[in-house]
């Protein structure tokens, strides 16, 4: 006795001719702050990708006669030091460029890895339930019950210095070295830190995904799909995963932020990726040793961390708004 209408849609939703993603993109495009931040992020990624081309100096080239130069000063050879120099007279601007590659690369790669682990385990746990769920959930609880920083500390102490013993295929290391613009030898430890961060960063994603998968499982169309003879795997890939994607994307942006910070915190405690491989975190940590004499120093590496992190946060925020089905317009 009712008029067939698009009852499930909110009142003012305009024509549904657009796909859901198109709507999201349209909304996101109009979110000015988010778009600005997106542009900033892309800009940072581009610059970091082009680091070797842009960098005015050698990454590790010290100049003992040009130490602690303040930004915009000119060194004894008449070269402009855009952002000054560090305690060895290495060019801050150059190192920041290379560092952005490692830091951003790590942030994105480790988060990606963590998300992959978290999504897989979360889906498996939520979808199959039973003993799979128990294993995943308990592992999660155990990992989550020990403070992350502590775990990281212990694990990094165990492995750093032995990274050559870790059986990572050479080609992986080479790819990494290329990706992060570091020497192959340095790539080992970068990769290690990435893996460690990922191994302890998946719990939130997994928990979220587990919940999503459970609710999606209950959803009617899964039943329908199963009735049509779809295999478990097919259901997972075709239904559960896409439906859980939007919150995952938001979670991803949060993860990127968290890893950026975790990397710096590790460096602060003297672990993590080591000089001379520059990262924003270890540059910041080095700089803070000199802050009483040169208070501007920690600001230089802190800025990109702040900017990248703000951009990621704002972008994630905008994305969340855009993905929110209740959001009007």
């Amino acid at each position: 006795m009712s008029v067939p209408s698009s009852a499930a849609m909110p009142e003012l939703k305009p024509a549904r001719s657009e796909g859901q993603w198109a709507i999201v993109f349209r909304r996101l495009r109009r979110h000015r702050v988010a778009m600005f931040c997106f542009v900033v992020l892309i800009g940072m990624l581009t610059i970091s990708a082009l680091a070797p081309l842009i960098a005015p100096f050698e990454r590790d080239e010290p100049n003992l006669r040009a130490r602690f130069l303040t930004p915009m000063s000119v060194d004894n050879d008449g070269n402009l030091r855009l952002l000054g120099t560090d305690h060895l007279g290495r060019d801050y601007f150059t190192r920041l460029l290379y560092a952005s590659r490692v830091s951003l690369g790590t942030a994105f790669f480790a988060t990606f890895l963590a998300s992959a682990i978290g999504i897989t385990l979360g889906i498996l746990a939520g979808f199959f339930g039973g003993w799979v769920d128990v294993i995943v959930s308990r592992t999660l609880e155990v990992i989550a019950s020990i403070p992350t920083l502590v775990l990281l500390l212990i694990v990094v102490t165990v492995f750093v210095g032995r990274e050559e013993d870790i059986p990572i295929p050479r080609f992986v290391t080479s790819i990494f070295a290329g990706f992060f613009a570091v020497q192959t030898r340095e790539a080992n430890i970068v990769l290690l830190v990435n893996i460690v961060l990922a191994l302890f960063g998946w719990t939130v994603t997994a928990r979220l995904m587990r919940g999503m998968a459970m609710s999606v499982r209950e959803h009617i169309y899964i039943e329908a799909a199963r009735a049509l003879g779809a295999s478990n795997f097919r259901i997972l890939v075709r239904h559960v995963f896409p439906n859980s994607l939007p919150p995952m994307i938001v979670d991803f942006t949060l993860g990127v932020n968290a890893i950026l910070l975790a990397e710096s915190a590790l460096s602060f405690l003297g672990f993590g990726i080591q000089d001379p491989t520059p990262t924003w975190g270890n540059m910041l940590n080095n700089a803070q040793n000199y802050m009483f004499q040169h208070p501007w120093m920690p600001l230089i590496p802190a800025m990109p961390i702040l900017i990248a992190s703000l951009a990621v946060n704002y972008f994630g925020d905008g994305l969340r708004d855009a993905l929110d089905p209740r959001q009007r317009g």
Partner: protein
Amino acid sequence: MTTFLIRRFVQMFFVTVVAAFLSFILLYLAPGGPIDELRGAQRQNDGMSRVDQTDVQRVRERFELDFYLPFRFSRWLIGWPSGPIFGAIGADWQVGCSIPGQVRLVYPDGRVEIIEEGCEVPLTLASIEDRRVSNGVFFGDFGLSQTILRDRPVMTLIMSRLPYTLSLMGTSILLSILIAVPIGIYSAVRQYSRFDYTMTTIAFIGSSLPSFVFGIFAILIFSILAQRAGLPYLPSGNASGARDWVMPYFGRIEAGSLVDRGLRFIMPVGVLTFINIAGWSRFIRASMLEVLQQDYVRTARAKGVKERMVIIKHALRNALIPFITLLAGVLAALFGGALITEAVFNWPGLGRLFIDALGRHDYNVVMALLFVNVVLLMIGILIADILYTIVDPRIRLS
């Protein structure tokens, strides 16, 4: 309810033991440690302090390194094995190795290598009868500190730091809640207002830099630079002054007085609160936004409920439900302290103790702190679950 509690306790028990065992293994796996330190001390020695096998053995004994790991763990956990069972059974059962055996491997190509393998002198139940052993963590005995406060009970050590961590964390958590909740609410109610944008930016900045950055900049600005400028300044660290000091315009401040302690409290609490507010206000805001869109809020308005009451009574109560999950960790945080902030401000709390213990291989102290942390976290989660059922009638413990 009872079944739930029983099941939960069993679960908590297993998670706690597994987590403890895992940390235990990791801890002993970490490089460094007493034997390394001993050998380090021996480096380039003058002969008089030379360390020989019996010295090594004594250190191994003191740190219980001569036990096999599972026994070491069970001694820590329940104080067993502490000798032959009922004084007689299993006197020759091997639970460890006093002196590891050495095996010389001769390879066909003539290479020779000596490796440690097997056991030269086994550690039997009978031989550990005289050893000092704690009653086991399970019975509330955390044993003795090994390096931080050598041979004194870990409990003494923890109790000496606990008040500082509790006051620091308690105050900052309380302040954070008191500030973050209204900010979150107001941001949500006035979504996209100038206030909201400002708060969002501040919150993002708070979560965009590692905490030590705020700490060192606070010290730089409020202590060093302020003092250099002759302005009233905040002491850079410690929980109380070692002696009286003079603050410009205010005069003499007595060491250990309330004013002294209060001034030293400001920066660490401020930094921690700032960071907490950053995260929590966003959380409350998101949760509140979600709730404000709910039908029952509209119903409340349609009933003629005052807007203030709509927010405070109808929306907030619902918005705070997910916040409970966040607060589940508070109990553990209260105890665990803030690792980095305590270190930066030289706050004599448990967080700093933890880092110190980790660095100096005081396994008993590290494990005690980790263990209590895990237990408190579990309790926190349990309380949160129970709290849920109180706050949200839809949830039942089953």
